[in-house]
């Protein structure tokens, strides 16, 4: 079912973590633990929703410089296979409701490994421009094309 990666839009991070799979799974799936590592300190993370089943809501918030908590990830779990796999996207919200923003689908896999856990994060992106950033700033549709065209013009000139 998983199709080959698109090198322009996808990335894969793999790591052997020297700890039992159950410990890595717990760090991912228990909100109080998840909050400890999802966002780099000193920014703080708050898990608003982590409903670990297909269609379950996945919502995190971020607080920077001690400020108010602001939206970070607003998405939906697509698959949750205990100890094995977590798939989420921000193109849907809880209950499969279409989201305003769509940027990523991530597939996190946890495999047994002689040294511990073989952990992989595979992220598929919608397009090669940070659409979220664009929407936060209220840009009009099609800005990605403009950026691409400009980049091309700049390259031609060089």
């Amino acid at each position, binding site marked *: 079912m998983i199709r080959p990666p698109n090198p*322009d*839009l996808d*990335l894969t*991070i793999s*790591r052997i*973590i*020297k*700890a039992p799979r159950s*410990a*890595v799974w717990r*760090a*991912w799936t228990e909100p109080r*633990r998840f909050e*400890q*590592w*999802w966002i*780099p300190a000193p920014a703080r993370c708050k898990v608003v929703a982590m409903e670990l089943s297909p269609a379950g809501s996945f919502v995190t918030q971020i607080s920077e410089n001690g400020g108010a908590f602001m939206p970070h990830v607003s998405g939906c779990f697509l698959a949750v296979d205990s100890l094995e796999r977590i798939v989420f996207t921000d193109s849907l919200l809880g209950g499969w409701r279409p989201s305003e923003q769509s940027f990523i689908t991530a597939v996190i896999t946890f495999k047994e490994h002689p040294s511990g856990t073989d*952990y992989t*994060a595979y*992220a598929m*992106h919608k397009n*090669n*421009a*940070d659409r979220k*950033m*664009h929407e936060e*700033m*209220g*840009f009009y549709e099609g*800005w990605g094309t*403009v*950026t691409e*065209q*400009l*980049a091309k*013009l*700049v*390259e*031609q*000139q*060089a």
Partner: protein
Amino acid sequence: MAQYHEQLDSVFQALADPTRRAVLGRLGQGPASISDLARPFDMALPSFLKHIHYLEDSGLIQTRKDGRVRTCVIEKKPFAAVEAWLDTQRAIWEGRTDRLERYVMAEQEQEHKK
């Protein structure tokens, strides 16, 4: 990383305006004087100059004065930042994986001590 994001922000902000996009599009074809750049726009020169200053402040263009003519040139570097967005995403996921690993390892150590 913060600096990198600031640069991206300023690029995207500069691109948010149609006049500035048009100016960048024109400069992508080669350097041009401010009067040549201003010609297609139905806009008072001081207003147009504000856009030029905005682009210059955000590092997207450079201007130089040759006698009485001010010429604008596009600056390539900021666009490389936009193109490198996948690297940014990779860095974010690398960071997350690093922190997850550290967190789990620390937790394991705690448990072994008990």
